C-alpha cells in the first residue's frame, strides 16, 4: 500500500516524533508506515485521516498487489 503520510507531515513541519505523539504510537511505527514497510490497521488509518482532516483514500492507496 502506498501513502502520502511523509508529505502530509512535512507540510505541517512535524517530525516523526511529533506525529507519533499525536497518534499515540511509537516513532518506529510512523517510520515503518512512511517507508511502506507496515500497513496500519483500520483504526490507526482512521486516526491518521482524522488528524490530517482528509479521507482515508486520499492518504492511502492500494499498491500493485
Amino acid at each position, binding site marked *: 500500500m502506498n501513502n502520502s503520510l511523509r508529505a502530509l507531515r512535512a507540510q505541517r513541519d512535524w*517530525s516523526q516524533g511529533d506525529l507519533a505523539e499525536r497518534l499515540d504510537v511509537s*516513532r518506529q511505527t510512523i*517510520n515503518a508506515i512512511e517507508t511502506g514497510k507496515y500497513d496500519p490497521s483500520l483504526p490507526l488509518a482512521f486516526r491518521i485521516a482524522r488528524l490530517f482532516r482528509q479521507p482515508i483514500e486520499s492518504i492511502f492507496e492500494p499498491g500493485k498487489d
Partner: protein
Amino acid sequence: MTRLTARQYGRRSTAAMVVYVSVMLLVWPQVRSATDLPAKVLLALVPVLPMLYVVWLMARRILGSDELEQRTHLIGLGAATGVSAVFSLICGFLGAARVFELDSIAMLLLWVFPLQMFSYGTVRWWAARRYGSDAGCSDEGGLPAYLRFLIAGTLLALTALWGWSHAMDSTGLGLLAGMAATLLLFALIFGVRRWRRRGEPRAES
C-alpha cells in the same frame, strides 16, 4: 495502560537482574544445607520472585505497546515458545531415557527461561529490523546497546571473580562466567556494528 519507555523498562529489568544474581549468590547456596522442608522450598523459590517481576514488566510493556510493536512482540514470543518447547521436549526425552542424571535435568530446566528470553529478544530484534527499527537494541533507551552489554558483562565477570575467590561451586561459577562471556561478545558485536555505521546518516526523529 501507561506506556513503559525503553529507559524505564531497562532500568527496572536491570534492577531485577541484580536482585536475581544477588539471590543466586547469597541465598541460593544455602538451599542444600537447609534441613527443614518448608525452609528448603522457600529458599529454593526465592529466585523466582525477581523473575516474576520481570515477566510482569514484560506484560506491562507489551500491553502498553502500539500495534506494530505488539506484532513484533508476538513474533518474538511465538518463536521463543517454539524454541523453549523443543528444548524442553529434547531434555524430557533424554531425561526419561536416563541419558542425564536428575541433577543435570534440573540444571537444564533452569535454562528454559533464559533460552526463552534470549530467543524472544533475538527474534523480536530481527522482526523489528524488518520494519525498519532496531527494537531493544537501539540507543533510544539512553546508553548505546554495546555499552549496556559491556556494563552487564563486566558486572557478571566481576561477580564470577568474586565467586571464584570465595570458593563458589563450579556450576554457579560456570554459569556466571558463561553469561559474562556471552554479554561481552554481544558488546563486541554491537560495538563493531556501531563503529561500522558511524559514517551513516542518523534516522529522522
